[in-house]
């Protein structure tokens, strides 16, 4: 898998995938998208890099703790968002939102607490997918 063609294409494709996944994550509250699909897309980008470059520049196999940290913190974030809804909104998973005026572009942006929940999901999916893929790639 480490042919020159593949590597060169990955150099271009991977950043696009990551950027697009961030876009999907942010639009997920009102439009199709969200944490799950964005997480899958990010991890697809990461796994492509892993396939093309192996462990030359980044030792994926010995970073399992980092991915463990990713999905644990993702779960914690999502769970705490749900709990916050219970304590301040009256129901578990109750979502709140606020309009914030952005100074530079002079527009009102809506921030919803569901986006935080989505971010947690994003981290979980990223962490689990990448650690699964690198585990499958191990030699033994």
């Amino acid at each position, binding site marked *: 898998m480490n042919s020159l063609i593949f590597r060169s294409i990955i150099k271009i494709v991977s950043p696009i995938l990551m950027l697009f996944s961030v876009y999907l994550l942010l639009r997920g509250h009102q439009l199709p998208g969200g944490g799950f699909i964005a997480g899958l897309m990010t991890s697809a980008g990461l796994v492509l890099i892993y396939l093309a470059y192996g462990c030359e520049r980044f030792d994926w196999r010995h970073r399992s703790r980092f991915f463990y940290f990713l999905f644990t913190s993702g779960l*914690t974030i999502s769970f705490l968002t749900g709990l916050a809804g219970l304590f301040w909104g009256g*129901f578990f998973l109750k979502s709140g939102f606020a309009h914030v005026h952005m100074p530079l572009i002079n527009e009102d942006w809506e921030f919803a607490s569901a986006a935080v929940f989505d971010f947690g999901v994003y981290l979980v999916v990223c962490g689990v997918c990448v650690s699964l893929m690198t585990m499958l790639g191990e030699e033994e």
Partner: protein
Amino acid sequence: MSHLLILPVLIPLGTAILLLILRFLPMARRIVIAFAGVSILGVNISVLSKIYKEGIQTYQLGGWPAPYGIVLVGDLLSGIMMMLGSIIAVCALFYSFGYLKEDGQQAIFHPLFFFLWTGTNGTFLTGDIFNLFVMFEIMLMSIYSLLAMLGDKKQIESGLKLISMGLLSSAIFLAAVGGIYALTGTLNMADLAVKIKPHAGHPLVGAVAMLFLGVFGLKAAMMPMHFWLPDVHSSAPTPISAMLSGILIKVGVYAIIRVFCLIFVDLQGAFQPFILTLACITMFMGAMGAVAQTDLKRLLAYSSVSQIGYILMGVGFFSVAGMGAALFYMISHGIIKASLFMAAGILKKMKGTTEMSEHGNMINISPVFTLFFLIGVAGLGGIPPSSGFFMKFQLIKAGLDGAFYLPVFVALVVSLFTLFYLAQSWQKVCLMPQKEEPTIRPSFKLLLPVGVLALLCLVLGFAADPIITLTTAASQQLFSPELYIKAVMGSM
């Protein structure tokens, strides 16, 4: 608005996450687990008593009212099943400390175990058919990993079987949910029950009901779909075997009851002969399989198949008495089977195998073990002081009242076989002389949960009356689905 109903899902979920965070602090994990186990048990007791006193409880997730949002609904059936689940789970948790190796294994086992617990409690509580699917998935995901956790060859093989079974059933389940959504445009179970009424007789309704029966039958190991169970239940780590046979196969039965007593009420009559026939075949074939086994855990797994047949028979009567008997059977069988599996795990710990020919003479090695095992045998065999007598007696009585003579006859014949294979296994393990003495004695940590469950079996036998009152009330509630619908839709 009381938040009591969300707690049985919330506490295990939070505990699982906390255990992931505390991965490298074994002492802290122990404290968290003990605290969480006791508090879930307490919460489930208070949920059940609240449902019993005040009727069906509902909780709207995120504050969105039914039928638009997702609701949790606790009726007596879910309360009883959660209670049973948490009793078995607490015993299995305690057992796991003695059974698994200290550091690495427990650090993986316990978070997954609590995710599993989240899934079972969620399944029992959810009032939304799609969320039922989600909770099933949470449960199955944790079981896959728990099963393959110790990583020997047999476990990986049975894990593969379980995964293929799970994926197949998930696909069919989704297709069925899609079909019913196309017809009615709703996924809330109470709303479905109302909106499906005008479509009675539509061929899609029958097809969807059949798909649901197939999917849940697959999970409950109903006969043509039982092939995965003996391997999976016998090769899983013992605390998980106890959970699988004690509560997880009953999740399938629970779903069958829920679907046929709430949504497809009109189809009960049409499906009755079918369910009863399958139940009889399941009972008989499961017992035949069990007679032929030489491995204790496999014998118990086949016996679970056979006992699921009894429970399905009680469900298939579709009468208040039959359903009540099936509920009592589920409680009693769950407790007894969990204790028997844990007893088999003690044998595994002593000699590394559960082949019955390798063991023997337990009556001299550990009289306490022999007694607990005997109580379990008497329980499943249906001998009076244990709860097993009442579970079979009620079922047979309900069958005779409804004039289902053939299923009752099959049940009686099969119960003879049940007593035969169990008594034989007890005799082999406890009375027969042994080739070589084991070096390890059964430890107190492992014997205690077995003893607690065996004691519960006796208590259920001596004080069967309040439990029967409870199960009868639950079954009356099931046969008046308008209560459920009113509780969910009335809170709009």
